[in-house]
């Protein structure tokens, strides 16, 4: 999952979706939308352990120029550039691609648009032992810091150990390093527990990582910038390092104002021959955060000199019509690899039919629209738990004989089958009352559910994030609602980053409290299966959960709506990260 800032950015937006709405029936036949999705490609289910630097040249690419990226509110960007704490879509999208190198990384296959996992600092994607409890990474020669000093295996090991630190550095390490590395439950990172750690050992050019339990997806975890070098000693100590970190990638930090602006310039110590994924076409990147949404849209649509090299990461729904008319292809939908859910409380809504009826009662498009999300564009309909692009994902129909979608008649039928007449069954949920959109979406849902034979009781909440209500049993509204929600994004295209967190018993973000012993066991068993069978198994679990238990209503997959100026060359969506692919972009001179 991507929590913390990702939750602010992705889920902040997703919030409305949840408070609001679900998946929409679908402009799937809209050719424009469909095409851009194909362009977006799959979220990186492919791997290429043989990939060597330099990265293949992009056809027509030119050197030079400055690209400005505007991140509209509520995307406040990074408050620290520390590689160990980076976990949000925006932080990762910028820093992993331009500034920091890690054990592995993603490269876009220019033919298919797919994201492929390739070696980065390591010479290959790692050598696991048979049961995935030990991984060896051999480090390439010729990698340098921006100062010109060589990056050693010790530096990388220090960075990896740093990801174990959950006190000074909050980051994804808590979810993966702490969870899987041998001794991770006790080790608190080099600053607290010292540099001696049994889980990470260095021998010459080789780093050996030992696991407490099988971790077949270490190569994917290696693509996080937390799995990269950090200088040991005072030079790399938090929190100062987060303000002026040392780059290893093609760009280095020229200036940084937290949550406001980040300027990146060429790093002349970066050697393209060692890097299989990144390019250095652009001279300078100016990243602006927390921008006024209306002003950002105006700028990029104006077509003036400044707008030609500008990218907006989230276009407002209200400007969609104008922008698509004026800018055509330069408005692009990109998959975020996120799903938002309505999560009925498993102990309160016990009947399978009622949970299924909810999925047919939910007014997907109405609620999206009222929440300001464009049906079929920034929200798309789906039934799988896993969003498009995940490894092994195959479409299926969880309810026999009827496609999931708005269908009040079917909902009434199911309610009747469960023994409830129209108006008998009350659905109580919490919505975001602090915005007009949240309230408007609630009214659409209320109307939709009532038309489908439910009684409704929406609880307004305006004191903060809806996760306060969904995850905190002490919240006064927590006990009153019988439907919670959650929006989830994958960290890499495997069900392992998605299904356990949401559908295993007693997980924090299992907000509906779904608990089935058979599913728990099946989830646990996946990691010990042969690697090639795992994606299929995740899809099978996805299907089993939805077909047999139907614990969640999929209220839509989340998509970005990018817009970019006419002089931006090779603009593509990095569907592994849900962010524009900055590695291969250039400015047309």
């Amino acid at each position, binding site marked *: 999952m991507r929590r913390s800032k990702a939750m602010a950015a992705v889920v902040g937006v997703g919030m409305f979706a949840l408070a609001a709405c679900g998946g929409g029936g679908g402009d799937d036949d809209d050719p424009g939308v469909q095409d851009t999705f194909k362009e977006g490609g799959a979220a990186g289910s492919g791997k290429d352990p043989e990939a060597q630097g330099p990265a293949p040249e992009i056809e027509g690419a030119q050197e030079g120029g400055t690209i400005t990226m505007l991140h509209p509110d509520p995307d406040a960007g990074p408050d620290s550039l520390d590689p160990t704490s980076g976990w949000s879509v925006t932080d990762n999208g910028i820093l992993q691609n331009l500034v920091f190198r890690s054990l592995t990384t993603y490269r876009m296959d220019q033919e298919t648009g797919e994201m492929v996992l390739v070696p980065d600092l390591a010479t290959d994607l790692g050598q696991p032992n048979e049961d995935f409890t030990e991984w060896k990474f051999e480090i390439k020669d010729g990698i340098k810091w921006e100062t010109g000093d060589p990056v050693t295996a010790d530096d990388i090991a220090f960075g990896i150990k740093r990801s174990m630190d959950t006190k000074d550095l909050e980051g994804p390490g808590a979810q993966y390093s702490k969870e899987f590395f041998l001794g991770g439950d006790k080790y608190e990172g080099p600053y607290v527990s010292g540099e001696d750690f049994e889980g990470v050992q260095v021998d010459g050019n080789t780093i050996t990582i030992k696991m407490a339990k099988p971790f077949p997806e270490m190569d994917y975890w290696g693509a996080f910038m937390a799995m990269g070098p950090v200088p040991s000693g005072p030079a790399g100590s938090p929190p100062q390092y987060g303000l002026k970190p040392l780059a290893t990638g093609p760009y280095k930090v020229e200036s940084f104002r937290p949550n406001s602006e980040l300027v990146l310039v060429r790093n002349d110590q970066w050697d393209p021959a060692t890097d299989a994924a990144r390019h250095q076409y652009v001279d300078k990147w100016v990243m602006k955060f927390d921008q006024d949404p209306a002003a950002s849209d105006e700028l990029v649509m104006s077509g003036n000199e400044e707008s030609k090299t500008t990218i907006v990461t989230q276009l407002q729904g209200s400007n*969609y019509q104008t922008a698509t008319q004026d800018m055509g292809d330069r408005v692009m939908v990109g998959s975020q690899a996120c799903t938002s859910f309505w999560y009925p409380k498993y102990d309160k809504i016990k009947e399978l039919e009622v949970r299924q009826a909810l999925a047919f009662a939910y007014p997907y498009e109405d609620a999206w629209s009222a929440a300001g999300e464009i049906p079929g564009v920034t929200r798309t309909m789906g039934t799988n738990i896993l969003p498009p692009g995940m490894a092994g994902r195959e479409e299926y129909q969880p309810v026999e004989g009827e496609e999931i979608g708005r269908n009040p008649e079917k909902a009434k039928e199911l309610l009747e089958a469960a023994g409830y007449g129209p108006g008998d069954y009350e659905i109580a949920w919490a919505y975001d009352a602090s915005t007009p959109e949240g309230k408007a979406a609630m009214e*659409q849902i209320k109307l939709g559910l009532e038309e489908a034979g439910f009684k409704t009781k929406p609880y307004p909440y*305006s004191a903060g994030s809806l996760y306060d209500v969904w995850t905190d049993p002490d919240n006064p509204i927590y006990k009153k609602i019988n439907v919670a929600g959650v929006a989830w994004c994958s960290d890499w295209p495997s069900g392992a980053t998605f299904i356990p967190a949401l559908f295993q018993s007693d997980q924090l973000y299992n907000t509906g409290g779904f608990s089935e012993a058979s599913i728990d066991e099946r989830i646990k068993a996946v990691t010990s299966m042969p690697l090639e069978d795992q994606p299929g198994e995740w899809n099978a679990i996805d299907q089993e959960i939805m077909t047999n238990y139907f614990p969640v209503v999929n209220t839509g997959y989340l998509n970005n709506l990018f817009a970019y100026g006419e002089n931006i060359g090779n603009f593509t969506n990095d569907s592994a990260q849900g962010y524009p692919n900055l590695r291969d972009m250039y400015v047309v001179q």
Partner: protein
Amino acid sequence: MTLPATEIGSHGPAEPELAPVENREVTGRSPLRIAFERLRRDPVAVVSFLIVLVFVLIAVFAGTIAKFFGVTTDTVSASSVLEFPSMLPKTGPPNHGFDSNHPFGIAPQSGEDNLATWLFGARTSLLIAAIATFAATFIGVVLGLIAGYAGGVWDRVISFVTDLFLTIPFLLAALAMAPIIADRFGTDPDRYAEVQFYGVIFILTAFGWMTMARLIRGEVLSIREREFVQAARVIGVPTRKILFREILPNLVAPIVVAVSLGLPAYVAAEAGLSYLGIGVTGRPSWGQTIDAATKWFNIYPLYLWQPVIGIVLLVVALNLLGDAIRDALDPKTRR
């Protein structure tokens, strides 16, 4: 030092000319009656009054008017009236011609009827502004009277509290308090809208009474020393009677002026709070519409113009009426 004779001469008041004596019947008219006569002859006042009256009628009969046009604020399924992915209405502006079923058009995103929202928004605006004005005036007058007449410790305490409230930045306090009130008292969803509504009135009142209190205190301080009050005290008239019979009637003019100028300020403040997302959400209001409509202005300007014109007309009319009332009651400031 002496001044030139000419200068000295110019200093004295000119000798009043004796008015020719007329045999006209003298009728007694109260100052308020005179002021009313003046108001009636002031065209600006009459026009503003009519505009305000129209808005009041709209607010009172919003439901009836909406029914006459066949529109309601009931939620309609967004997909039934909107086109996707543009989220703009299927009928009416901006992409289609006038639709008599929805004279003001349909809101994008949510598909609400604009006319119904506008009518009930007028009701919300006026209701909140009127209640808040009344409450703030009441508190201000009471505290002003006490501070001005009792003096001493009372005066010092009340003046301190008044100054204290004046130092609190209104917007900051409102931003902090609105959600607290709503969530502290609004756990029951049925009462949430009500709590929010009175919460806004409370905030407006709590930060609106100070000017009135200061004004009244100052007036009382000067009236207290006037002969008729002194006389009443000497002959032993009870304090209550002095306050209500001697002083209060002399304060009617400043109170009326302050109220008439305060009302538009509250209308604007309420819209401002709604726009910032801390006003009412349980019922339609102009501020909310403005908030929703700003981002649509490029392709659907009419959507924003409706609430803006409503607020501007109402606030300007109320302000001009207030000015006219002040001029009528206080001839010294007559333009």
